[in-house]
């Protein structure tokens, strides 16, 4: 494995240069999303024409944490969230993180908007806990673990799974 490319919240422009198969080390803010929270986000958007939170220039992590003494978190299957990708990206999201492959429609959206998709190692949340500094709920507290959280990650290792040209590590 080559040395990962360092990327922080301040240099999201670098995301566009990544190629599928490249590892990055990310430091910055991550916003969680998953089944119930994304569903609610879509419903609120349909009702009010706008989102309850600002996701401009943010990276989405498909996940829900355990809030014990440390942040215990890991990715969930991204494919289930494909239906909401267009809305997230049209509201400014610059990349998404999860586990597994994505649908053809999602890959087309990723390519069109140059918003890469990363995968994070799954099922190892104790190991990952040291890469998450702090977190807070930013919306939908009533959903419990599925609330939308904002976390600060530090040096989190991510693998570029689908890049801005639509190339995917799962096709190689």
């Amino acid at each position, binding site marked *: 494995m080559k040395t990962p490319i360092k990327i922080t919240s301040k240099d999201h422009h670098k995301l566009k240069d990544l190629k599928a198969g490249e590892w990055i080390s990310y430091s910055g803010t991550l916003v969680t999303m998953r089944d119930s929270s994304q569903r609610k986000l879509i419903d609120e958007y349909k009702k009010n024409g706008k989102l309850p939170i600002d996701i401009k220039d943010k990276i989405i992590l498909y996940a*829900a944490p355990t809030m014990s003494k440390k942040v215990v978190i890991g990715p969930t299957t991204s494919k289930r969230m494909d239906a909401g990708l267009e809305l997230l990206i049209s509201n400014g999201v610059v990349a998404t993180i999860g*586990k597994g492959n994505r649908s053809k429609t999602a890959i087309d959206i990723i390519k069109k908007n140059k918003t890469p998709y990363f995968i994070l190692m*799954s099922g*190892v949340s104790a190991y990952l806990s040291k890469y998450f500094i702090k977190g807070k709920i930013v919306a939908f507290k009533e*959903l419990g673990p599925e609330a939308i959280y904002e976390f600060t990650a530090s040096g989190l290792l991510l693998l570029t799974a689908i890049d801005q040209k639509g190339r995917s590590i799962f096709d190689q």
Partner: protein
Amino acid sequence: MPKTRIIDDKIIINKVCDLVIKNNLELPKDIKDTIQKAHKQSSSRQEKALLDVISKNADIAKKQKLALCQDTGISCFFVELGKNIRTKSNIDLLINKGVEKAYRSKLLRPSIIDDPLNGKNSKFNTPASISIELKNSDGIKISYLAKGGGSENATGLFMLDPADGFEGIKKVVISLIKEKAINACPPIIVGIAIGGSADKALLYSKKALLRQIGNRHPNKYYAKKEEELKKDINKLGIGVMGLKGDVTALDVFIEPLPRHIATLAVGVSILCHSARRGSIKL
């Protein structure tokens, strides 16, 4: 006939609570050893690094009392209840109380929604999924399996024709794994029940996941088929996290069941690499 024995409700609640917490913080020894063995056998540097992370995760989880995986799953229980055992409250109620107690520790993430379409988080991961078998033997055995959503979504049920035989079974199992294993956090453990009614095929495919790695079926025919399928699955090259490699299945367990003359049910349950399961006997 052994003498009737009354077990205090509190004992069961506390034992179940401990079982749930311990299994979510400590990777079973057979799984840990198998991951280390796979690390030696893998020919890919990237895969070795990922297997190493799984081992490190187990060490950190145990030492720092953190969940091995944030998805602590549906709490599945398989109870073998001996004829001589009595409890004041129903056993399923006691198990649910034990699960609730475990989740009150806040170490584990509650993941159960109380109604499938209009529900909310039940807060303590209840109700658990409990199956109870009545046994002639003495005592009670409670086995626990933390079944994450990713691996549960990879479950398969196939109603084949009896004439399809083992080759037909192999075909559907391989095709299911090709399609779905990637989201079940490979390396996986595969439980397959052949025969039975549709519901029993699914139940016993899941119960098969409780077996220790390398623990072959006592029937030599099925033991051989377990080895054969394991080889075939690993030849698919899906690898850890689906990133291509040599390690896709840690083991395959088959449970044969009597069947109807017209049916050949095949239930397939898949367990992720964070194979959290264990049991207690009272």
